[in-house]
């Protein structure tokens, strides 16, 4: 692997890792102040537990040889082959680094849909099983030369043997997957107490803006870091193969990464504006929550498409994704399901827009660029398959947990606030009020006991 490329992958892995704390703020700012810590803990918890399982069997299931069959175009890799990363090529560690961050954030994305009401313990059991059942297999199918890749025998080849499905950085594996899982969990777990009646407005919108900013920043690692030297299928560095730092490689690297960076930015900017325009027309005002949401919708939509579009095409895709997502988030009130922080409305919807949009806007063979319907059809097929896979497995798992550990905290605890009930904490203590600067320790809490510490 070229050292310049390696430096960028190391940077990218770190950027994607930062996205999950960023998500914790994007989501945390939208909850009520009594739930913000729990919301953030769902993200941090995912960082902890997914890392462990990814190292143990996640990499193996994603990029190991197929568990069954002739080892080609399968559903998932053999979890035991590279268990604990033992015996992998040293050159592959950098691929593990990059890929495990994707698994973390995909799981964390789901949490926004079930804010304020879920037992932390159940979440911490759900996450490792879910990534094992739904994420690792889809990663294998799409990026590990599996069933949704371009390998022969793969789904796409059943229809058009010459069309390769495109998912540059995770429209199906990450966003459709997480969005679908979110939808299923909402239906299984049910709405927050008081949903549609009580006011549940964001308690700290600057935090949501901060989260949006960190997500945007980290997303460059997500998309641009997904560059794969044409020479190898699969993920960058996976094979640890080495590329001569030839003029040729450098030119490909510079050209493709530059384009992906610009496209990612173009779609994000356009989606932000798209969302704000819809709000301006519908509600009379463009909101900061709308801008932050539009940013994320744009990033989601461009994720699968960032390598296939032109900058102007990316502007178009983003604008459409932002506008559609802005309309989609309203639906939950009509349909009466409590996708608390709009994971479905943003990630599933924009993920579909992006994945399918490639069929229209791909400069190589998109419908609008004189390509046939082949690419479009293939994109629709993999999107549907991803929804099906994620939906079914999440449903099974969600029901299993519902009837064993149970998902919901008690109603009165939900009113009291999940932060205290599940974590024994309160997010804020602004000792004395605004404008009264000589803040004493808040007089409203008393008598510290430290037996706890001695236990």
């Amino acid at each position, binding site marked *: 692997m070229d050292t310049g490329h390696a430096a960028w992958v190391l940077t990218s892995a770190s950027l994607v890792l930062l996205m999950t704390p960023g998500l914790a703020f994007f989501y945390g700012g939208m909850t009520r102040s009594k739930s913000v810590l729990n919301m953030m803990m769902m993200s941090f918890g995912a960082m902890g537990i997914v890392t462990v399982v990814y190292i143990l069997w996640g990499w193996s299931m994603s990029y190991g040889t197929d568990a069954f069959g002739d080892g080609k175009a399968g559903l998932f890799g053999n979890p035991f082959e590279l268990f604990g990363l033992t015996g992998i090529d040293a050159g592959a560690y950098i691929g593990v680094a990059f890929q495990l961050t994707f698994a973390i954030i995909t799981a964390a994305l789901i949490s926004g849909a079930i804010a304020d009401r879920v037992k932390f313990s159940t979440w911490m059991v759900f996450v490792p099983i879910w990534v094992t059942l739904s994420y690792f297999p889809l990663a294998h199918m799409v990026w590990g030369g599996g069933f949704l890749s371009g390998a022969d025998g793969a789904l796409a080849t059943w229809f058009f043997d010459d069309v390769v499905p495109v998912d540059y950085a995770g429209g199906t594996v990450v966003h459709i997957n997480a969005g679908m899982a979110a939808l299923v969990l909402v239906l299984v777990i049910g709405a927050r107490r008081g949903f549609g009646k009580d006011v549940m407005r964001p308690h700290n919108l600057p935090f949501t803006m901060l989260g949006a900013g960190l997500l945007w920043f980290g997303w460059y690692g997500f998309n641009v870091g997904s560059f794969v030297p044409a020479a190898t299928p699969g993920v960058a560095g996976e094979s640890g193969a080495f590329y001569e730092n030839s003029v040729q490689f450098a030119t490909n690297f510079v050209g493709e990464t530059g384009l992906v960076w610009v496209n990612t930015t173009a779609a994000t900017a356009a989606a932000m504006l798209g969302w704000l325009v819809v709000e301006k027309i519908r509600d009379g005002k463009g909101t900061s929550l709308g801008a932050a949401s539009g940013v994320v919708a744009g990033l989601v939509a461009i994720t699968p498409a960032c390598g296939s579009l032109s900058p102007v095409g990316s502007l178009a895709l983003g604008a459409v994704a932002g506008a559609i997502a802005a309309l989609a988030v309203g639906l939950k009130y009509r349909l009466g399901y409590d996708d608390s922080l709009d994971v479905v409305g943003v990630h599933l919807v924009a993920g579909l827009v992006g994945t399918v949009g490639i069929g229209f806007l791909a400069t190589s063979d998109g419908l609008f660029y004189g390509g046939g319907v082949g690419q479009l059809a293939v994109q629709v097929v993999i999107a549907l398959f991803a929804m099906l896979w994620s939906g079914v497995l999440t449903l099974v798992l969600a029901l299993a947990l519902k009837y064993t550990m149970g998902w919901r905290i008690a109603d009165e605890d939900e009113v009291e606030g999940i932060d205290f009930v599940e974590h024994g904490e309160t997010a804020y203590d602004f000792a004395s009020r605004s404008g009264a600067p000589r803040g004493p320790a808040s007089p409203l809490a008393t008598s510290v006991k*430290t037996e706890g510490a001695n236990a």
Partner: protein
Amino acid sequence: MKLVTAVIKPHKWEEVREALETFGVTGMTVSEVSGYGRQKGHTEVYRGAEYDVALVPKIRIEIVVDDADADDIVGIIVKSAQTGRIGDGKVWVVPVEAAVRVRTGDRDEAAL
């Protein structure tokens, strides 16, 4: 006139407001306060150190009313704020000698 002061549980505020509105109370002044009483606060743990929180959040409502309405209003508040569990709060009544509407300078009954 009388000043009716009520200290209630925060999540009952909506019901109390609606009940008072129905009765015809057009105005009141509300503040977030902390209550100390039989209902105990909870315990938090930070890095193994336990903190008892002695107070619990309450909503404090002040309403200046005609002498005639005082009892009814107290009754309405008690009814609508009641959960039957410890910590439901208190209502008390204090005599008011004068009241003025700032906007108009109207005094007493006319001020409400």
